């Protein structure tokens, strides 16, 4: 066996499993989902078809449009909120902590909750913000309120708060990766040339950290768009998001094609955002030496 054939056999062995799996359990299901979005529903059956009715319904029906807008709004708020909270924290960790060990410890303690039960972390906000929850009872105990307030829970505020909370560690991780790559010598050089600290930040640090922000923001936005747990736990009557609607189509409404269509729309939007930020990130990628 010559070098080439031998190499090809080796490669085939390594690739066989993952490629087969990816095809069967990723490519095919997504393709089926796409196909389903074109099916029509003749209650109670679902009929294979190729029609755009589901998509038309999405774009024409006012309630879907509302839900869509609401989802975009929540996703945007969460993304911005997460960035605003994560950035100062990350900046502090990267640039203001001198000892690498302390820095890593603090960073780890911020990141670790990321993988701890999403459900539980969201659920605790329910216990905190509720009528008889920690926040209300604490405010009453402290004399700030006479009565428990309804304002904290079962509304969009609660959803945004919960989701922001979930995604802050994620943004920290993303921004950290970007900030860490910035050689301190660049910042020192800027200050050495007489540029003030704020302007150095705006002119040097911030632009160089944008790829990290974009990457984290894209994923935060996408995952928030597709979340149905937060609306379920802390959302109110006006809290139906895109994912909740999809859930309903596969639940009681029994309109699978419509649900598939909504899911496809969501998927396309998220993929577009990811591709766009990917490209922007690559375009702005500078050789930091």
């Amino acid at each position: 066996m010559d070098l080439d054939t031998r190499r090809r056999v080796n490669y085939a062995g390594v690739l066989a499993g993952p490629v087969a799996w990816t095809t069967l359990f990723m490519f095919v299901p997504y393709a089926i989902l796409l196909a389903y979005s074109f099916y029509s529903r003749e209650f109670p059956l679902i009929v294979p078809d190729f029609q755009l009715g589901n998509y038309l319904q999405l774009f024409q029906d006012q309630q879907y449009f509302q839900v869509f807008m609401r989802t975009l709004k929540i996703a945007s708020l969460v993304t911005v909120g997460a960035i605003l909270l994560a950035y100062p924290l990350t900046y502090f960790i990267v640039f203001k902590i001198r000892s690498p060990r302390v820095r890593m410890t603090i960073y780890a303690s911020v990141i670790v909750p990321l993988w701890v039960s999403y459900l539980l972390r969201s659920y605790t906000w329910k216990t905190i913000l509720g009528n008889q929850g920690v926040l209300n009872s604490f405010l009453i105990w402290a004399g700030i309120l006479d009565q428990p307030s309804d304002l904290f829970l079962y509304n969009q505020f609660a959803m945004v708060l919960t989701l922001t909370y979930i995604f802050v560690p994620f943004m920290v991780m993303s921004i950290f990766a970007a900030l860490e790559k910035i050689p301190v010598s660049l910042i020192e050089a800027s200050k050495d040339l007489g540029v003030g600290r704020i302007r150095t930040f705006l002119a040097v640090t911030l632009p160089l950290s944008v790829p990290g922000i974009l990457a984290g923001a894209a994923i935060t936005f996408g995952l928030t768009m597709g979340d149905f747990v937060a609306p379920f736990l802390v959302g109110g009557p006006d809290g139906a998001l895109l994912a909740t609607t999809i859930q309903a189509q596969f639940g009681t409404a029994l309109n699978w094609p419509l649900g598939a269509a909504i899911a496809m729309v969501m998927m396309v939007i998220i993929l577009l955002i990811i591709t766009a930020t990917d490209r922007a990130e690559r375009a702005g990628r500078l050789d930091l030496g």
Partner: protein
Amino acid sequence: MTAATLERNRTVGLSRTRRMPFGSKHASDWTLGIAAAAVVAFLYLPVVVLIIFSFNDNNLTTWPLAGFTWHWYQNAFANKELMIALGNSIYVASIATALCVVLGVPAGIALDRIDFPGKLLFRRLVLLPLVLPGIVTGLAMMIMFTKVLGLSLSLTTVILGHGTALVSVVATQVFARLQRFNRRMEEASADLGARPLQTFWMVTLPNIRSAILGSALLSFTLSFDEIPVTYFLTGRDNTLPMYIYSTLRRGITPEINAIGTVIVLASLVLIVLSIWLLSDRGEKSGK
């Protein structure tokens, strides 16, 4: 400003930073520090609340605290359904993790060094479950299983779903570690007479071992907590998060705080361990 003045300013600044722990010379640095601390407090508030109230002798999560009790823990562990769900979760997570490793390691290797037709598509597909909301992946797989393959939903379908969703965790970590791996070592191994399989076993694998272990632990933890994909693929048997999810529909019971605390603490341990393994301790990268 002359070069001398600049030099002097810089040295003065430096010596001052050496004295303070944060290297801060300005009030704004302290403000930043306080803001950072506030965010960290915010991040840990719910976890602290969860733990505290799991021991609180009160049906409701109100302040001020009532007495200390093990009551909720006892309830939780006596709850048969909950325990079964816990067992199911462990079962699912174990097999799903094994699946992830068996598929993820070759996937990571393939991404690192093999150029094959469709590689770009493969790479995108593998990463997709990480960036797409779980609902999309869960839905797609559910339709395929029930309508196309005619299977009924069960723990097995859940396992398949988790395996698919989490394989990229292992693949990306293995890939990342391989990227840092000094390719010369494999050449040296071949140069010294080792055939490719020998090289993989004796040289490559030991150096990516901690990446495999770390990502396996991470996959386990994530599988344990998985909701969106599981939601659509669960049959009669519940995993723990599905059980909690359905319980929450009916209202909060403090037992959830108890079992939640156990899960959170166990997860923390596993994750810290996994991060430690995944962070490539310098000397192992082969220089």
